[in-house]
């Protein structure tokens, strides 16, 4: 046997598809030429609530030049397959409209000009109804979660009681590649959909349901995907089904590629919410009780809202140990476009409030909020709000210590009108699916030893920039004792690979990566006795030490938590209220950095998204739709806006993660926003309770002081 090559786990090896990405060879959905493909377009509601009275196709236009798809053309169920069957694929004539931009018709034509012309020849008449436009006026509840620990009493005599209400806003994922899919009808009733997506099997299920296809007839292939962040978790099912319906009717391939305006106007956003806290402490700072109420706005349809609410509720008490906790959470419906998955998935929202409560309580007591965190923080052996005993890999003290050590001495500002401030946050984030999610999913991968001596990973887990292909290759190569170039991955094509579950929930490295590692190890063993080709499948098996009760919301909500402490430095211009985040230091307990540069990359990118959410990413509503529907009006940070970000990786291993690794994809979204608000307070003396902390809000708050 050849001498063992240098191992790759823990080293920042070059990104496997990196050469393609830097040369323009990488093929994203719209780069893929499909001869004879027509162009598709979605016709959407212009009202927020009501019904379709009539749909008229102007007879002056030659409709034989185009294909028109309505709800009547849906062979299967007119349902977007997800959790609850409440969202139609297309609203039928006479049907109910629940949000602006709701899809009604689809068009396809040989060229874009014709499809645009056809679109302008469609007249839709509506019966208007009064829309429910915000959380305050919402009555329909999608789901509720109640978490209870100990007993929260009303009589808090002798305690300091701090009450505060916080608000968090909408946020667009703003992947730089807009949504898109190409549907290709093939022989034997097969429809192949190539798309920009995170979860091939979600799309597969949606196609089967709406187009009445068998497992083999629906084929979903993920193309190189230009960012997802949750925005391409569930939404691509709609794009894919729409493209497939057009392709089916046209009898030819159809490209349905959104432009940025449509993507901004019509696709899912982060759930906005209102979070109310009532915290009781003893005068010495001992935490006595947390009483928390959460209301999230799900938009018009359920989508993934119950799961978002679940994660928000489970994280709502923060990274702290409290004997008495009551969390009452509900998600309500409004006549706005449905909200959906976005990195963090409810936790950034509730942790924003939890972290600022620490600041407010510390202020009331005249204590340092860092000292208060030291007093309250969850440590090894402590019990969370759901009654989970944290039996391993609790990095709270490690990250707090590391961040404080790394933070440099603050310098005074260089202009007389600018004030400088610093804020800190301590957060945790459950890695993997909530509760019984992984158990229900039973994610499965395939692993092959090929006749030519190389190895192949078969997984539906997608590369969306976070490094899936590289990390899985590292895990496989090291388990096999071979070089990285001996390992390949099969395409993320549902006709080729089993369902390893969606690429979400900070699970890919920790849960699926572990399966890759196990499969590779098994193949290595078998190769001692057998010759290739060999194939194994590995499915997730829930360890019997994880117990979760879905009805009482008690037990082990997540297999393990990752931890982060973030320190933010801001400059506030007192004449304009402009907030500039100049520096971020963040210490992250990731269990094990399988690929340090990629781990840092996740942290840096997630932190900047959180900075944007806290400062400049604002969506204003008008008539049930988003006013900020172009990149000129929905602003994300440029390189000039971005703070210097320093990341400290702390390896505090988790026994079940590959090499001890924990999922960290979403954690970076949780810390910066409350740290920035605390920093604004440090600079100006004012407390904001709402993000984004726009200059308008900052200036008004300073003026009313």
């Amino acid at each position: 046997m050849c001498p063992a090559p240098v191992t790759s786990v823990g080293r920042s090896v070059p990104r496997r598809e990196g050469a393609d990405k830097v040369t323009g060879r990488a093929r994203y959905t719209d780069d893929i030429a499909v001869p004879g493909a027509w162009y598709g377009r979605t016709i959407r509601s212009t009202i927020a609530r009501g019904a379709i009275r009539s749909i008229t196709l102007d007879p002056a236009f030659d409709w034989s030049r185009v294909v028109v798809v309505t709800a009547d053309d849906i062979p299967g169920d007119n349902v977007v397959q997800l959790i609850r069957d409440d969202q139609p694929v297309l609203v039928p004539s006479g049907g109910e409209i629940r949000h602006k931009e709701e899809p009604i018709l689809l068009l396809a034509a040989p060229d874009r000009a014709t499809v645009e012309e056809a679109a302008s020849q469609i007249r839709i008449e509506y019966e208007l109804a009064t829309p429910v436009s915000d959380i305050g006026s919402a009555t329909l509840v999608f789901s509720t979660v109640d978490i209870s620990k100990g007993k929260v009493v009303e009589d808090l005599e002798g305690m300091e009681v701090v009450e505060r209400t916080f608000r968090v806003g909408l946020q667009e994922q703003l992947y730089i590649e807009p949504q898109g899919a190409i549907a290709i009808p093939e022989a034997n009733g097969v429809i192949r959909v190539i798309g920009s997506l995170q979860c091939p099997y979600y799309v597969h299920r949606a196609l089967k349901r709406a187009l009445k296809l068998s497992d083999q007839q629906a084929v979903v292939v993920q193309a190189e995907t230009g960012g997802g962040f949750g925005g391409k978790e569930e939404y691509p099912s709609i794009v894919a089904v729409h493209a497939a319906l057009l392709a089916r009717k046209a009898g030819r391939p159809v490209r349905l590629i959104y432009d940025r305006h449509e993507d901004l106007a019509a696709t899912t956003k982060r759930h906005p919410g209102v979070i109310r806290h009532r915290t009781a402490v003893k005068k010495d700072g001992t935490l006595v009780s947390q009483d928390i109420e959460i209301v999230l706005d799900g938009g018009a349809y359920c989508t993934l809202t119950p799961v978002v609410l679940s994660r928000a509720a489970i994280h709502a008490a923060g990274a702290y140990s409290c004997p008495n906790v009551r969390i009452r959470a509900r998600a309500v419906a409004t006549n706005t476009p449905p909200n959906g998955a976005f990195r963090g998935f409810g936790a950034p929202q509730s942790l924003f409030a939890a972290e600022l409560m620490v600041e407010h309580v510390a202020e009331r007591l005249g204590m340092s909020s860092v000292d208060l965190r030291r007093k309250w923080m969850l440590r090894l052996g402590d019990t969370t709000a759901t009654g989970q005993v944290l039996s391993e890999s609790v990095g709270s003290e490690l990250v707090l210590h590391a961040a404080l050590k790394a933070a440099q001495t603050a310098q005074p500002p260089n202009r007389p009108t600018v004030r400088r401030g610093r804020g800190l946050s301590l957060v945790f984030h459950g890695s993997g699916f909530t509760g019984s999610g992984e158990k229900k999913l039973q994610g499965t991968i395939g692993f092959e030893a090929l006749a030519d001596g190389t190895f192949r990973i078969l997984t539906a887990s997608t590369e969306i920039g976070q490094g899936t292909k590289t990390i899985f290759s590292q895990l496989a190569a090291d388990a096999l004792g071979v070089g990285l170039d001996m390992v390949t991955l099969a395409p993320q094509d549902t006709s080729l690979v089993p369902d390893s579950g969606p690429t979400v929930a900070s699970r890919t490295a920790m849960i699926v990566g572990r399966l890759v590692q196990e499969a590779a190890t098994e193949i290595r063993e078998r190769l001692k006795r057998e010759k290739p080709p060999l194939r194994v499948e590995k499915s997730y098996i829930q360890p019997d030490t994880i117990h979760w009760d879905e009805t009482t919301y008690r037990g082990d909500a997540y297999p393990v938590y990752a931890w982060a402490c973030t320190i933010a430095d801001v400059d506030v211009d007192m004449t304009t209220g402009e907030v500039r985040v100049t520096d971020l230091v963040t210490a992250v307990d990731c269990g094990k950095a399988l690929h340090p540069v990629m781990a840092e990359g996740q942290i840096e990118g997630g932190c900047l998204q959180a900075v944007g959410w806290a400062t400049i990413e604002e969506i204003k509503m008008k008539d049930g739709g988003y006013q900020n529907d172009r990149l000129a009006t929905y602003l994300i940070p440029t390189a000039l806006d971005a703070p210097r970000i320093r990341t400290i990786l702390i390896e505090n291993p988790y026994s079940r993660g590959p090499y001890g690794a924990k999922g960290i994809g979403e954690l970076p979204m949780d810390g910066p926003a409350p740290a920035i608000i605390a920093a604004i307070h440090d600079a100006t003396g004012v407390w904001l309770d709402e993000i984004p902390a726009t200059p308008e809000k900052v200036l008004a708050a300073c003026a009313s002081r």
Partner: protein
Amino acid sequence: MRFTLNGRAVSFAGSGARRLLDVLREDLGATGTKEGCGEGECGACSVLIDGEVVDSCLIAVGQVEGREITTVEGLADGGRLTALQQAFIERGAAQCGICTPGMLLAAHVLLQGSRRLTADDVREGLAGNLCRCTGYTKIIDAVLSCTK
């Protein structure tokens, strides 16, 4: 009309009012240049015209008559990656990669200048290229690793 694309002479017979972005992607098979917004806000469609970085979604193809266009496909010298492209791969400056072509071209122009770049220079020079994945940190590292 005629122009040069990555050192190769090309001719184009369609309407001069079409966006250069569309002609590159649809007529000339050069899909390395991406459309992120169509508004001149994101820089994903950046190309070089006679060495100057511009958004190709804002250029009418007729305007590049006789000019030298460079796209991401024209950076590597016959398959050999430039130091900048190599740095992008190794230093984690490319994650999902969709902003990478435009980012490389803007950075390439920055590195052509005569003086040593600072981090602030790089931030300013890349201000027209949005990235959602990286937080820009490793992009700046990669560019600085290539400066004089």
